[in-house]
């Protein structure tokens, strides 16, 4: 009987699933989009465009590396380093995309590791309307895209002199469909990204090297109070004094070019870390300005050949010096014949003569020397201090103390290999650098680089 009233042939089978994006899907999608418009917040997206074109410096200098291809065009499909599988020098779209998104706010704990403040649990899971994302962004959000979350902007950093509020950046780590974004049609409407706080790193340099300043395009008709910063083309200017309208931007009485700090300078910790490092280096340099030991403060009693004390106080190195112990030694008594008790490991080698007596620097011994005279031969490497004893020039010391900071002033053996800017002339390739990597040793290079 029942079958008489049920038309099994005309009534479709009940199913909300739709394999295609039908009107149900579109109705739901529009509704969801509207919900994101109504209830979501604007998020500013810095779009990852791909690794920089032209490869790295090593590729540009002719040292081609198949694992670090030279790309002609920007593309997110490219991978910069095919060995390490890294995109280190990322390029971000200078345009910023605005999209509505939703995330759950949460409490975070500050994790002060030795590298700085990291926020435990400060991982945002943000959902975006999928189709709006495609329409606005042109593709799905992916790992490497950077999100600026405007409602987390910090208007009150500790340093109140900072020129603007500090925006909060996140970088997307993972992205996928959101489980809560599937409608009854079983079709997804939401895109969920996992984002963690951005670090001031090489990868995001094209974002963080942007000027940290409010963009204010110069208008000749405006009045600008002193200190105002405007940009004119790619150049920033700062008003030196109150500037009335109709003052040309090139009038240096009113305007001076201004180099604004970058986002990295202000929001990153590198500048402060470097300042801290510099302070440590300054103090380290104060405590040990040169390797070895400073013996300049010590006095060495001049002695005669038999070890008896000679007269030094008040004596001067003059040709007619006759003040001696017994009148027979000439200038022998006026200067120490050696480093005396200060002689030791890396001592007395700072180009200062014993007792700070006068020294003649030069590349040859002077004619007609007086006994006791010191000469510093600059053509010796390391420089060598000699003393004239009436018959010959006796070696006193070599200059072996050196600056200990890593850098060109460091004269250690290792530094002479690392901090080497010398060139070697060749008959066919002109001057080539003396410093060369062993692996590239003496290979001809396109730019005569070595």
């Amino acid at each position, binding site marked *: 009987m029942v079958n008489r009233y049920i038309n099994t042939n005309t009534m479709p089978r009940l199913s909300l699933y739709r394999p295609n994006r039908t009107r149900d899907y579109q109705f739901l999608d529009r509704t969801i989009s509207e919900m994101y418009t109504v209830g979501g917040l604007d998020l500013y997206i810095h779009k990852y465009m791909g690794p*920089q074109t032209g490869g*790295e*410096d090593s590729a540009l200098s002719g040292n081609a590396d198949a694992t670090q291809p030279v790309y002609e065009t920007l593309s997110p499909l490219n991978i910069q380093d095919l060995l*390490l599988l*890294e995109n*280190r*020098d990322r390029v971000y779209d200078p345009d910023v995309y605005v999209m509505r998104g939703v995330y759950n706010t949460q409490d975070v704990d500050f994790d*002060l590791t030795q*590298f*700085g*403040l*990291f926020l435990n649990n400060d991982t945002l899971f943000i959902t975006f309307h999928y189709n709006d994302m495609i329409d606005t962004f042109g593709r799905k959000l992916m790992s490497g895209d950077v999100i600026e979350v405007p409602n*987390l*902007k*910090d208007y009150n*950093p*500790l340093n109140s002199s900072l020129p603007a509020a500090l925006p*909060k950046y996140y970088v997307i780590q993972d992205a996928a469909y959101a489980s809560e974004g599937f409608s009854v049609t079983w079709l997804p409407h939401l895109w969920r990204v996992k984002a963690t*706080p951005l*670090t*001031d*790193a*090489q*990868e995001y340099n*094209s974002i963080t090297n942007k000027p940290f300043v409010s963009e204010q395009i110069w208008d000749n008709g405006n009045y600008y109070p002193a200190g105002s910063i405007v940009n004119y083309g790619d150049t920033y200017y700062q008003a030196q004094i109150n500037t009335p309208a109709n003052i040309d931007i090139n009038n240096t009485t009113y305007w001076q070019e201004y180099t604004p700090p970058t986002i990295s300078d202000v*929001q*990153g*910790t*590198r500048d402060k*870390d470097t300042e*801290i490092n510099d302070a*440590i*280096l300054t103090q*380290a340099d104060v*405590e*040990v300005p040169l*390797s*070895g*030991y*400073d013996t300049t*403060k*010590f006095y*060495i*009693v001049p002695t005669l050949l038999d070890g008896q*004390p*000679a*007269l*030094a*106080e*008040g004596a001067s190195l003059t040709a007619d010096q006759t003040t001696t112990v*017994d*009148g027979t030694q000439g200038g022998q008594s006026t200067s120490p014949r050696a480093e005396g*008790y200060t002689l030791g490991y890396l*001592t007395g080698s700072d180009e200062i003569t014993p*007792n*700070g007596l006068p020294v003649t620097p030069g590349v040859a011994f002077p004619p007609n020397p007086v006994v006791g005279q010191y000469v510093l031969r600059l053509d010796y490497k390391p420089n060598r201090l000699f003393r004239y004893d009436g018959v010959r020039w006796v070696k006193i010391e070599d200059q072996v103390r050196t600056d*200990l*900071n*890593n850098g060109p002033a460091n004269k250690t053996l*290792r530094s002479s290999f690392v901090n080497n800017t010398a060139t070697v002339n060749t008959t066919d390739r002109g001057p080539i650098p003396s410093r060369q990597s062993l692996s590239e040793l003496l290979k001809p290079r396109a730019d005569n680089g070595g």
Partner: protein
Amino acid sequence: MAQQFFYDEQIRRFLLQFTRIVSNFQIEYGREANSDQAALLRVPVRYGDASRNAQTIIQENSASSMPSTPLMTFYVSSLDYDRPRMQEPYFVSKVNVRQRTYDQDAETYETTQGNAFTIERLMPVPYKLGITLDIWTSNTNQKMQLLEQMLTLFNPSLEVQSTDNYIDWTSLSIVELDSVQWTSRTIPMGTENPIDIATLKFSLPIWISSPAKVKKLGVVERVIASMYDAQGDLQDAVTNNDLLLGTRVKVTPYNYKVVLIGNKLQCLQGPAIVDQPNSSLIAPDLVENSNLQWPAVVSVYGVLRPGISQIRLEQPDGTEVIGTIALDPNDERFMLFDVDPDTVPQNTLAAIDAVINPQTSAPQDGLDSAIEGQRYLLTEPTGNLDNQYNPTAWVGANGRPLVAEANDIIEYSDNYWHIVFNADTMPGGQYVTNITTGLQYYWTGEMWIKSYQGIYPGGEWSIVL
């Protein structure tokens, strides 16, 4: 009562120098603006165990602050007593140093001698300091760039100095690379994306030292050649001054001697000859053929402070005659000796007018006319009780002759000469001053000698600067 506080930042200084070792390294960081050249970025280094307060300040107290990478941090991971390096804990090292004079105004050292010190250093305590260096990089390429540059430093170690002070025997150490941990991540990475940290572990064998003792170096020291007395007793030998004077050999450096002539001291080399020995009652003359100058001698030990520095002359009985000294402005071979009268032996006899030879001089014959109270010390005898014709020059009233022996002291009173000091009967220990020369004489019991003026060989005089 608490122990006196001392803190010399010994570990801190090593941390400073360790920071220096790993500082100033660079990595490639994109490209220079408008250039194909790689931009280079210096990697900062700082201490890793920052307080939350300091770290918050670094990061502007803002969650918007972005930690910058690459970054290296280090921290002390261990500090252990290093027993294999232990040495004699009670050992005290002494170093004698002289400083150049420091010009406070110009803030420079001059070419002349300043203070001289003896530095005593107690054996420092050996420790092994462990330092961990964490290297945070945002990619593997940065890490390889950094490590390639840094690891060539340690083969297997690098010298490090905490100070450049010549006297600081604890300043030199080494930084030895113990281990390298490539990454802190687990591979494969999984769902999390932790920061990537390479870790280098270092050890530094350091010394921690107590403060040193600084003492003034200013006394001409005696070198004691024999350490034990005849009984092999060290303690008695050191404390018993008689032994010092008896069995010990006292040496003044270079064996210089001094001669006191009036208020002048001349320093002489050992072989120099003084024309009058101490047994002579005549003051010696200056040794003209010696050019040994006091500044050369004094500079061996320090700086002379005129009127304050002293010279001490040791007497045969162990006492010292002390006087302050100042350089003779007219001749630097001499030191003006201002003797402390309290240290000079007191006269036991009334002063004499002169030392005379009664056989060659007499009143009104080379000497003044005899007057009441006149006193002479005789170097030769005169008169004889058996002689009927005694020298008339010494005859007094009523033809009373003077019969005296050498070394006697005679005095004129009641119109004739009396013997007031009979050398034959007087014991030793008498002192008398010659008014004419200012010399004081000492009666040994057998002869008169100069009491404290004269020659002092090496070891019997000293300088206190």
